[in-house]
């Protein structure tokens, strides 16, 4: 990252970092520390928010495990993901597997809920994350050497959790926005 030009810039960035906790937080565990929008802090929203964040952090853990094997059929994926993201994640894991690669290392996540829609069908919760993938590398599965040009740095990721007819919340869409550093 280039050095900020002035002391005031440093101060602003420090304030922003503190507020956003972007990338400086440890890996999300259960998302328990997430802030629920106060304007709609009714119990249903709180439950939806918590369920969505739980599904999201479960997805990240499962995806990391699946990518480190790598195994597109890793059962943990279906626990937290629904289609079409489930299929997308699986094809991507198969892709790196077929190329003799895998992913390893630490992925730092800092998700927050940006919208809750309980009236829509299905009900959805929108999540925005700042993922720090600096320590998360694609490596050759045999030699463990990193694949060149695959470092992602820190970027914005978005995801949507949907409520399914059986009451579960699963992450069913999501995208990395590498053009948006954070």
């Amino acid at each position, binding site marked *: 990252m280039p050095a900020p030009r002035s002391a005031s810039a440093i101060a602003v960035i420090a304030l922003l970092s503190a507020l956003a906790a972007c990338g400086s937080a440890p890996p999300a565990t259960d998302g328990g520390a997430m802030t629920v929008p106060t304007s709609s802090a009714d119990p249903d929203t709180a439950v939806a928010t918590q369920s969505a964040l739980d599904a999201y952090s479960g997805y990240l853990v499962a995806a990391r495990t699946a990518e480190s094997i790598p195994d597109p059929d890793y059962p943990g994926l279906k626990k937290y993901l629904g289609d079409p993201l*489930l*299929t997308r994640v699986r094809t991507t894991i198969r892709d790196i597997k077929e190329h003799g690669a895998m992913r390893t290392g630490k992925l730092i996540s800092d998700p927050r809920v940006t919208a809750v829609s309980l009236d829509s069908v299905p009900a959805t919760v929108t999540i925005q994350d700042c993922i720090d993938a600096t320590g998360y590398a694609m490596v050759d599965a045999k030699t463990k050497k990193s694949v060149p040009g695959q470092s992602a740095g820190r970027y914005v990721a978005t995801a949507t959790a949907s409520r399914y*007819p059986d009451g579960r919340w699963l992450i069913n869409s999501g995208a*990395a926005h590498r053009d948006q550093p954070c």
Partner: protein
Amino acid sequence: MLTRHRLSRIGVVTAGLALVLTGTVAALADDGGAECPPTQTTCDGWGDHPGDPGDPGGGGDDDGGGNGGGGGPCVRDGEVVDCYDDILGWFNPSDGCYYLITEPQPAGGAEGQTSYTRSCGPGGLAGGEPVWLDDPPPGFEAPPDPAELAARALASLDLQHPVIGIAPDPAVGPGLVGLPIWLWVPADPDPGDNASTWGPLTATESERGVTVELTAEVSKIEWDMGDGHSFTCPTKGTPYAHQGGPSPTCGYDEGYREPSAKNAPYNVTAQTTWTVTWEAGGETGTIDGVTRESTAQIQIDELQVVTK
């Protein structure tokens, strides 16, 4: 750097608390190209397409005959693709997309509708969108095509080029005008593996309950002696055994009529034609046009050179 400055300004203007509550950092801009999942930032950077026909493995010989039996119903942009992909589902020939039943089924469908996950484009990575349909799309849940499995089974075999046995042995010395030439393909040094110049070779391929058993064996060998004479033998011939007279099974019995020109030996070409048959639960088929070819050289001298 640029983005960071932009963010800084937003942070200053919205001042503290509002940022935490609304999370307006970095709007959900569309990326334009294919989107990658949150943790997988390089999802389409490989330059090839997993949904395309599998790599054939061994036996990738030059003659295009090895992939006979293809040309099934699953074609996208003029290229044959797998009719079924174990992640993307079934190929729909009418729109070139793969379909599978969305898992789990989302809320919000109309009565009688099913949500399918549709993946279009090479590798299916460009798609992955849910669609509600009243009826399954064309090709959905189609059983495996035995001919496709047979092509895959054939690709797992190494149908080798014929090794040319020829007497008189060009490595020892030239042959003579008018004397019989023996021609044969030596016995397989490694019978039982999946490589042979003559066969029979067998292979089995299974998918989703359909099993194809395939047999490949040379049915004939065509010899072109390089002097305008050619003939066909139904067997691999008899290795030369230091005796006079023509080969009992396969040879150029009357011999060359003319000596070869100086520094221009005759090119002897052998082409094997493989008979490839397969069987799948009572259904049978063949893969035609599978041939392999090799060339050897033999020098022929005048008879009087030796009798002098």
